């Protein structure tokens, strides 16, 4: 059973690792995402150069961004930086999981930040997306 604690700069440890639950990407997710970002590219819904529909490359990015929610109660945070490498297309029907590791935390101009490296994999262990993001911690 997971015990959640409030996310504070002090509680956070560099080297700490997070793992998301596995998540089944559905056609409805692809459709909802297309609406949310107002991008209805035909490859999301029909044939593509990859042999069938593919999802928007950033479709599951929030799974990585929310990794810290798997262990902490996050009162609020701001996303400061994002890096992606898109290695393989994401498709509906995949079951994807993100893993992350806190690689840095620092204070700058009175603000506190955490830096997380992540990979998102399918259920065969193929890396689909990898990258790194920086989040600002907003105190409760």
């Amino acid at each position, binding site marked *: 059973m997971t015990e959640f604690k409030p996310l504070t700069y002090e509680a956070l440890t560099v080297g700490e690792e997070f793992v998301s639950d596995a998540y089944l990407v559905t056609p409805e997710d692809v459709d*909802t*995402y297309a*609406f*949310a*970002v*107002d*991008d209805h*590219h*035909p*490859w999301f819904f029909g044939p*593509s*150069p*990859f042999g069938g529909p*593919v999802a*928007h*490359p*950033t479709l599951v*990015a*929030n799974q990585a*961004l929310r990794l810290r929610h798997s262990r902490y109660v996050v*009162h*609020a945070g*701001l*996303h*400061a*930086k*994002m*890096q*992606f*490498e*898109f*290695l*393989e*297309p994401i498709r509906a029907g995949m079951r994807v999981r993100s893993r992350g590791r806190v690689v840095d935390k620092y204070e700058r101009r009175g603000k506190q930040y955490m830096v997380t490296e992540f990979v998102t994999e399918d259920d065969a262990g193929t890396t689909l997306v990898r990258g790194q993001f920086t989040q600002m911690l*907003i105190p409760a």
Partner: protein
Amino acid sequence: MAIAHDIAVGQELPPLEKDLTQRHIDAYSGVRTRSIHTDEAWARRKGFRTTLAQGMMSTAYVSEMMTRLLGAGFIKGGAMSVAFVKPVYAGDRLTVRGVVKEVREKDGTRVVVEVWCENQHRQKTAVGSASGLLA
């Protein structure tokens, strides 16, 4: 969908315009209480004038612009590095822009684009670069 093959350094990409309604933000983030994205009272309590779009939405817009440029070479082989420099609020209109900075020959042809988003006041909200492979 047509993919541009005559790409030149200095070339400006066709801009994208995005109206960020609360409905779009809700669909993106999932409606939750105590969220600066979907709970206006909570956003105000945290010092913002209203709810904020997720920064990640801007990466999706950059992704759209790059996929229009490079097609499959962005979906498999694309990369992006973006800093979110100003909040984007519900009701803002963003314009997503890009200029080709480099065409690099190494293990294929990689096109590097300087990208940024600006709001309706011409203030930059996200800045960075994105790249992908030319088919």
